[in-house]
């Protein structure tokens, strides 16, 4: 019995391989397993190659896994196009279309897999409903060989095909059974059956973009303004369906500048506003972010990172927009930057982002990434009844009585904020430097005070330990820091090496900026070696940390450019090697 399985599949666009992955994850989730699914496509809009990676486990999973336990290739050309995204090793079981066999029978893989099985998938499919049934045959094969929730798969299939009538359902069942029969008739060299899932109360399934959109609704988002861009578009798509029902509204704008501009307007009007984009759009929003900063308007900006610079790698993972998130605008400005590490996190980070925006009257940047945004993941049910929403500080009647000062210098740097509609709160908001009343003011002393206010007000944020996750051994001399979707990979790697007896600890910041110097320094205390792991060539978080805190010499960046994600096994190897090395 195994507890965790990692399956990768690839085929041509029409093969429905991604649909098979979705069906398998849905069924496994319904059966009570944990799991996640990531998809990858060629550059074509339609046709071309497509693939997915599926991980199913009896335990919670933190990432899409390491080398594949099972690889399914409907043809080798397509499979090989995904290179490092579908890595096999000497332990993998490779299932491939029999007719794709090379004349010499050799597999086009660098490492010979543990077991290679040619299956006449197309032929079986043709016998049971035709070419389009190939993915159903694959489901049959997988469910029988690996004991993957056959009942649940069949139930899902029936539900999905209900509208198409009983004949279609029957044909699908036959294809599925034919696959399963083939598997039973050709058992694996070593059986690898999944252990049954633990009994669970509830299982949720979501991808990052969809959950972010829903989280925004829970967080009271009244307005969304945006412009489509991969891989963030689904946030707008979901909200364009759902936001109206809650009295909210949405503008698909003419560009990203207008998108964030509309949010600035809505926020000026007292509403909770959000926009979502990716790198190129983020670059265009830079000026408007500065306006929201100086006018001290709450605003949530989600950047679903993809590979850069410029158009870069629109459909691939990279974590290289951190510099931009922290430092993009002209002038002295600080904007909080948060990052989820998983789909589940997307909920709390989105709610936190709205709350921080409102509390501190500031734009907040959420750095999601391509992986989180589009991977489907099982979640524990989220209890929304405990969510606390923070409202911006409204002026009291006294504030409004004697000449309302929108930018009043208060001890905590936060001034009561009015909005159009509120009698007595009229003021001039502006992008120009202003005095407490909002009138333009160009003096140096005033500018110093106002800059201090706008930056100093974030001090309490740096104390919020709940925006950081620390796991592992307090007495370790080796530590890992990682963020975003790389963090889930590192957390698993840390668990693995700790089970091997190594002492390690890991810090995962959800709040990336401003740098919570004390929290990072506390974590680093006692460390002589370690890694800051991030999917960017420059190791951006490492650089930013160094500029605020003393990072021990032995703690080094471990990073590379995107589209070639880390695997837990790789990080495990790095930690092992580092543990053995003596650092002077």
């Amino acid at each position: 019995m195994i507890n965790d399985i990692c399956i990768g599949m690839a085929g041509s666009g029409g093969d429905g391989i991604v649909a098979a992955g979705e069906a398998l994850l849905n069924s496994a989730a319904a059966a009570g397993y944990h799991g996640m699914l990531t998809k990858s496509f060629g550059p074509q809009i339609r046709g071309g190659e497509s693939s997915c990676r599926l991980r199913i486990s009896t335990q919670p999973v933190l990432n899409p896994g390491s080398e594949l336990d099972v690889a399914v290739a409907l043809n080798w050309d397509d499979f090989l196009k995904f290179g490092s995204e579908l890595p096999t090793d000497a332990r993998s079981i490779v299932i491939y279309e029999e007719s794709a066999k090379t004349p010499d029978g050799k597999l086009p893989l660098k490492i010979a897999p543990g077991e290679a099985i040619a299956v006449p998938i197309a032929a079986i499919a043709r016998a049971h409903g035709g070419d389009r049934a190939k993915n159903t045959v694959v489901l049959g094969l997988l469910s029988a060989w690996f004991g993957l929730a056959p009942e649940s798969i069949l139930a899902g299939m029936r539900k999905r095909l209900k509208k198409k009538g009983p004949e279609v359902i029957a044909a699908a069942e036959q294809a599925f059974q034919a696959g399963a029969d083939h598997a039973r008739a050709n058992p694996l060299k070593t059986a690898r059956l999944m252990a049954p899932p633990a009994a669970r109360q509830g299982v949720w399934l979501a991808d990052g973009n969809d959950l972010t959109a829903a989280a925004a609704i829970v967080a009271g988002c009244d307005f969304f303004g945006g412009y489509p861009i991969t891989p963030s578009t689904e946030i707008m798509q979901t909200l364009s369906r759902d936001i109206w029902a809650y009295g909210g509204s949405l503008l698909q704008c003419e560009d990203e500048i207008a998108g964030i501009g509309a949010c600035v307007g809505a926020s000026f009007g007292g509403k909770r506003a959000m926009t979502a984009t990716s790198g190129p759009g983020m670059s265009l929003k830079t000026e408007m972010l500065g306006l929201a900063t100086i006018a001290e308007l709450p605003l949530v900006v989600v950047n679903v990172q993809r590979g850069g610079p410029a158009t870069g790698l629109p459909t691939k993972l990279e974590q290289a927009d951190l510099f931009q998130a922290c430092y993009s605008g002209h002038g002295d400005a600080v904007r909080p930057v948060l990052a989820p590490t998983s789909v589940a996190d997307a909920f709390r980070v989105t709610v936190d982002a709205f709350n921080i925006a409102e509390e501190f009257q500031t734009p907040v940047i959420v750095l999601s990434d391509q992986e989180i945004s589009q991977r489907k993941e099982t979640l524990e049910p989220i209890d929304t009844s405990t969510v606390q929403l923070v409202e911006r500080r409204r002026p009291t009647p006294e504030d409004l009585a004697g000449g309302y000062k929108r930018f009043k210098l208060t001890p905590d740097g936060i001034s009561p904020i009015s909005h159009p509609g509120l009698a007595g709160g009229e003021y001039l908001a502006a992008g120009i430097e202003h005095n407490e009343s909002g009138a333009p003011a160009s003096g140096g002393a005033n500018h110093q005070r106002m800059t201090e206010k706008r930056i100093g007000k974030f001090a309490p944020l740096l104390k919020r330990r709940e925006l950081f996750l620390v796991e592992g051994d307090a007495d370790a001399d080796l530590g890992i820091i990682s963020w975003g979707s790389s963090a889930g990979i590192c957390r698993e790697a840390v668990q693995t090496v700790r089970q091997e007896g190594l002492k390690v600890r890991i810090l995962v910041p959800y709040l990336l900026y401003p740098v919570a110097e004390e929290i990072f320094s506390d974590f680093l205390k006692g460390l002589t070696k370690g890694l800051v792991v991030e999917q960017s060539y420059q190791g951006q978080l490492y650089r930013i940390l160094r500029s605020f805190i003393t990072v021990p010499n032995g703690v080094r960046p471990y990073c590379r450019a995107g589209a070639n994600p880390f695997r837990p096994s790789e990080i495990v190897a790095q930690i092992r090697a580092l543990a053995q090395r003596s650092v002077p």
Partner: protein
Amino acid sequence: MSGACNDPKTFKSDLKPIWCPGCGDFGVLQAVYRALAAIGRPTHEIAFISGIGCSSRIPGYTTVYGFNTVHGRALPIAQGLKTANPDLLVLVAGGDGDGFSIGGGHVPHAIRRNHDLTYIVMDNQIYGLTKGQLSPTTPKGETTVTSPYGSFEEPVNPLLYCLAYGAGYVAQGTPADLPGLTALIEEGLRYPGFAFINIQSPCVTYGDSEMQMKEQRAALRPLLAEGHDGSDRIKGMDLAQQYGRTLHTGVFYRNPTPPPTYDQLVRERQADQGKDQPDRRRALDRFAVRH
């Protein structure tokens, strides 16, 4: 804020305008005070959004909620404000550069969405605030500090553009005719939908002579007097072609049957979609695959 909402003085703030003596924008400001007084809504229900430029300073001189944003982006900001707060009366103002150069990409979209906004452009055919550069409405061949040998480009035609974009109310006025301008702004504010008012507001420092107001007054050609009552859009477009040559004032086009505004459509959809009064806290329910 206190004071009667139909007294122009109610809308005058303590900030002293820093425009040059003789600048046309003073007159525009007066017309705005008067038009707002004619409408009579309280200051806190009004928002006045502008970009950056001499002209864009105007909201600061009023007592309503003002937002002097960034160069060229007043319209997107105003649209977000209005969509999320449909009960507000929202004015937008800026210069020819703000509106038709850097901000020119936003105009067609604000118009085709038909937000209920009133957009007044103080068109002085120059960049005033930055001291005299070529603006999109500067006549071809004109010399400015960035076109010392004369400009190469045909000017933008704000009136024709906005008509082509489908604006429901398109007018032109000048502070040289203050009552006329006031009436146009007031009508724009009352028009249910996007209203565009181009104002020939002279820049006496970098563009026009000190005598400009007087010259304008002599050159005024009220459209009504020419028999154009604004109901014929094509005729409006034809007359708009004379922009830059003839100083037509009045309404080029007024849609006699205004279509629903964006804000109305939004409210209808909200009512429609929200009739089951969904609870925000249940927005995640749909993610459950096993209960």
